[in-house]
């Protein structure tokens, strides 16, 4: 059963170009292109509800990708990601409202500004080990959220900030069916960018810092530079995603971007697989769709004895949080490589189907 997607035993690579290629086989490349083309038809095929879920997965997927650069590739943790996400949202709304810059340019600009702010918080911790960065980002989470509730000129204070809809060449993109393509374009570009980053000299340096930072330093990798760089990149993607979110929702408010949301971003990365680019998207989809499935289960159980005893429907938000926490623990204990690893195992199983080896 020699199918073209089978990589032959003894995977010999004789040049760097072959070693760093994105798609190992032609089929995998064609499948990826076909996947993107197929998803372009989603607005025509899916209902409003599923489309909005797809958009949310796309937006959070970009933010989680940034976090994965930090957690999965450089081996640092941030528990302030939601604050940077929100910062990007407010910045983009501010730029597009207060200046003549159109939304089209405001989104990448918001990413850059967020990256700058991220660097301010990342800089003290970049000299130190992962633990200190966690604590610095914890401080960032509280300081930034406090700043948003205080700075009325920037975020509107207690009143939510309004964001303009996305427009291109004077043509306004309104509604999910149009906005979907904007998000899709950003998802494809950022995932390609990060995949390419990981093939480059800088990407390999990041991985070296994660695997053994002392050896990396001895080999001439500038630790401070790369830790700061990865932190800046993480904040950049968080900012981009936040800006996309702002112009999708059209209002931005402080609500719901506390530390729980930062933990949710971490959950996406862990569940998807730390250090796996495609896994990030799977993890995001898992985390976004989990509440939906829980609502479905509790709706099924409505009126039954279990429901009456535990009052499931009244406490759905807490149940969701418990589920997220337990799933993070379960993945860390039983499947540290995440869904991406499971997916690879399923693929090899079917490739060799009747035989186990």
């Amino acid at each position, binding site marked *: 059963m020699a199918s073209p997607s089978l990589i032959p035993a003894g995977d010999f690579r004789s040049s760097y170009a072959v070693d760093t290629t994105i798609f190992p086989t032609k089929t995998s490349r064609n499948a990826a292109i076909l996947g993107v083309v197929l998803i372009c038809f989603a607005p025509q095929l899916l209902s409003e509800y599923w489309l909005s879920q797809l958009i949310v997965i796309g937006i959070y997927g970009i933010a989680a990708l940034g976090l994965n650069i930090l*957690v999965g590739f450089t*081996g*640092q*943790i941030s*528990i302030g990601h939601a604050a940077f996400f929100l910062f990007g949202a407010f910045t983009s709304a501010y730029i597009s409202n207060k200046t003549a810059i159109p939304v089209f340019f405001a989104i990448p600009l918001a990413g850059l500004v967020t990256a700058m702010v991220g660097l301010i*918080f990342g*800089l*003290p*911790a970049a*000299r*130190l*080990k*992962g*633990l*200190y960065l*966690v*604590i*610095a980002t*914890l*401080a*960032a989470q*509280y*300081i930034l959220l*406090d700043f948003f509730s*205080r700075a009325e000129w920037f975020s509107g204070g207690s009143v939510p900030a309004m964001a303009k809809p996305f427009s291109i060449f004077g043509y306004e993109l309104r509604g999910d069916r149009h906005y979907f393509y904007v998000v899709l374009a950003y998802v494809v570009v950022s995932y390609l960018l990060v995949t390419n980053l990981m093939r480059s000299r800088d990407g390999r340096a990041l991985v070296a810092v994660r695997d053994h930072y*002392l050896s990396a330093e*001895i080999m001439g990798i500038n630790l401070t530079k790369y830790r700061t760089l990865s932190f800046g990149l993480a904040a950049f993607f968080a900012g981009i995603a936040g800006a996309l979110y702002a112009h999708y929702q059209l209002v931005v408010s402080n609500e719901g971007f506390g530390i*729980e949301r930062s*933990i949710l971003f*971490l*959950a996406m990365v*862990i569940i998807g697989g730390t250090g796996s680019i495609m896994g990030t998207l799977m993890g995001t989809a898992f985390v976004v769709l989990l509440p939906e499935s829980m609502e479905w289960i509790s709706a099924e159980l409505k009126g039954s004895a279990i429901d009456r005893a535990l009052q499931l429907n009244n*406490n759905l*938000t*807490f*149940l*969701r*949080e*418990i589920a*997220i*926490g*337990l799933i*993070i*623990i379960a993945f*860390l*204990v039983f499947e*540290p490589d995440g869904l991406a690893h499971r997916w690879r195992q399923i693929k090899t199983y079917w490739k060799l189907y009747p035989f186990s080896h």
Partner: protein
Amino acid sequence: MNTQFLLQLLVNGLVVGTLYGVVAMSFVLIYKATQVVNFAQGELLLIGAWVCWTLLTKYQVPFWLGMPMTLVFMFAFGILIQVVILRPMVGEPVISVIMVTIALSTVFQAALKWIYGVSPQPFPRVFTSQSVNFAGLQIQTVYVMSLVVSVAMMIGMAWFFKVSKWGLAMRATAFNQQVAQSLGISVKTVFAMAWAISAMVSAVAGVVVAVVNGVSSGLSIYGIKVFPAVILGGLDSIGGAVVGGIIIGLLENFAQFIDSEYLHWGNLYEVAPFYVLIIILMIKPYGLFGTKDIERV
């Protein structure tokens, strides 16, 4: 300049600060003995407070009996967390362990909200008299009690580590696990004990806060405020944790004074410790009393 107000706030700061010190101490205890950064410390406080509240109000247990029962429960609970969740994580990367404790805090937080609801509950009265007069300042009895309990716990902790056999075993393990093991110390037991004692100490702090302010999920903020305190004092110094806690408590209340007298920003009180945290990380990352990490290859 309102001297009376400032003094009142400073007394407040001292009381809250010693509590921070106690929580920070139990945080450092776990960090020193098991190298685990515990993000669920605040939830241990909360669990202790809720358990005590349940015993006192639901089952009408008197306080002198309810408190030891809470402590016994927390002792077992600490061991349970260590054995079931943290023990499989031994040898995993630091980041995974941190993430497990973050997830634990989410689970506890949500589970407690599920069981007890979100609204704060008043704690049953433990003392009869409301306040005592001390040098012209009205100080609530609960504050005096809080201060006394905190200082007693600190002295108890000092005795434990200086004199008792278990404390010495714990210090040996913190110094070097392999050497400790070869000297006949059961490192496994020490790990479990560290969690158990930390959970107990946190529960005492939790009950003290609950007596003063009532029980609510907001109590777990103490677990977050621990970070400025321990970073200030040095992550692996128990004395430093106490000093750091007191400084953070005083600083918070001083910030409130500045805020209400001059700046009128609103909630400077809550964020001031985090600004301090960032500044300390920039200028003195290993804290006032922490050991500087020097790596040799």
